[in-house]
């Protein structure tokens, strides 16, 4: 079986390309030339060369945060299929593990942020946790609807089981789940309607403000984990939205990768064309996504 290796290698190698594509799309929309597509790789290389600075007030939690975050997201990458390429590990109910690996990553990022004792980081942590608590039901309900629709309980079988025939038979359910997961994808990855990755004002940051005090290799871990997270959730979304299952690996996998790149372009277009929502509006957006998921679940349970 070569599929899982292809899947994991692609994720590990191509993940930092996604933020590059998003930035390039935003640059084109703004009429700039923009940074190179491979900028994130350069950043990672540069950060790995540096040493880390630790404050005397921090404890081991601060150093553990990035490492645990990266390992949690690598474990999630093992669970998620890419297009028709099955994941390395799959067992019944692994979708719950998948959802809560993100939970572990967030928990330790938040702990590391609180460990610094900075007021801004505490504020960012509080916002991150609030929004995550609202995004979680949307993700779990959406995956539950998908599990019921495909009759599988493992993420890999579920997502590779989505086919054009299923889109013909149950298009409302799949479209609702895809829409809901797209909102979750934007919220979890700190993208624009929820959080602005480019902002430089600590008061308005959510995710970025939590990692302000990390530097050097630690920050490289965080940046790399963020791109892997983009890739993992994107792969779930693409598994539903691009159901190309010809049975030949050399068609299906490139189609899925192309889908990922298109998704990145779409995110770039959204970031160029709309402003960040008011903090009070974000829960409404996430509740809307939850409503979509519940609706899909009601439709399949009927």
């Amino acid at each position, binding site marked *: 079986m070569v599929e899982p290796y292809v899947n994991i290698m692609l994720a590990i190698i191509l993940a930092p390309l996604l933020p590059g594509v998003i930035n390039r799309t935003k640059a084109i929309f703004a009429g700039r030339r923009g940074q190179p597509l491979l900028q994130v790789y350069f950043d990672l290389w540069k950060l790995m060369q540096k040493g880390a600075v630790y404050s005397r007030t921090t404890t081991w939690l601060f150093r553990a945060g990035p490492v645990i975050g990266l390992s949690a997201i690598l474990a999630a990458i093992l669970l998620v299929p890419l297009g028709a390429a099955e994941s390395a590990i799959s067992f019944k109910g692994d979708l719950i593990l998948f959802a809560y690996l993100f939970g572990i990553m967030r928990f330790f990022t938040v702990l590391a942020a609180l460990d610094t004792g900075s007021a801004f980081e505490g504020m960012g942590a509080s916002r991150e946790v609030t929004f995550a608590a609202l995004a979680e039901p949307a993700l779990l309900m959406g995956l539950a609807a998908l599990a019921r629709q495909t009759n599988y309980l493992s993420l890999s079988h579920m997502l590779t089981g989505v086919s054009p025939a299923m889109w013909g038979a149950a298009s409302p359910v799949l479209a609702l789940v895809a829409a809901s997961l797209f909102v979750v994808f934007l919220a979890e990855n700190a993208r624009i309607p929820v959080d602005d990755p480019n902002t430089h004002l600590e008061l308005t940051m959510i995710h970025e403000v939590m990692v302000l005090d990390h530097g050097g290799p630690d920050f490289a871990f965080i940046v790399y984990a963020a791109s892997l997270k983009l890739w993992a959730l994107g792969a779930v979304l693409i598994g539903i939205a691009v159901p190309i299952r010809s049975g030949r690996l050399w068609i299906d996998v490139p189609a899925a990768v192309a889908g990922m790149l298109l998704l990145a372009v779409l995110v770039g277009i959204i970031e160029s064309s709309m402003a960040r929502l008011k903090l009070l509006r974000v829960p409404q957006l996430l509740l809307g996504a939850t*409503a979509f998921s*519940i609706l899909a679940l009601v439709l399949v349970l*009927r």
Partner: protein
Amino acid sequence: MNNSVDTIMVFLVLTNLMLLGTSRLGTCIRVVAIQGIALGLLPLFLHRNWGEIHLWLLAGAIMGLKGGVFPWLLSRTLRESNDSREDEPFVGYGLSVVTGPLALATCFWVSSRLPLSPQIAPSLVVPVALFTIMVGLFLIVSRKKALTQVLGYLVLENGIYTFGVALAQKQPLLVEMGILLDVFAAVFVMGIIIFHINREFDHIDTDQLSSLRS
């Protein structure tokens, strides 16, 4: 039944949820208009008699009235009332959006217990019609602005209409046209009433109508 009807039904549910969640009155009017147009398409896809002229007439009349005339009347009323364009609800928007799926689940449960004909039972039409009626009632009860209450009335009527189209296979054209005329008269009268409320009180907030003018 068939997939296109179910798609229209899901669209109906989504517009209902959007009505529960938006605060802008202009957006609400537009959403109700889109809902009316989707409902105009419903009899065509439900009965699938593409040659029958009366279905086309009905669809045209519904789309023209619900998608064109009502929104125009209501947005003119909104423009002429110098009120703020935001609604102030008794029940908050977040809570309203959460109420929606719960109400929908209740409607599915209720319709599963109704003695429906086996032809109509598996489709989404009956539960979604009930849900639309409930959303209409909820809008009338939980919003303060007179305009939103008119919109709630329209959504309520949309629900009853969906129910009727699904259950009565051969409804006479005359009856449906009569209902449309009634609704038209009602919206017309309500538009005039809102205009008068606005001229007397300088706002269309029904919650404050009980207090005396100074």
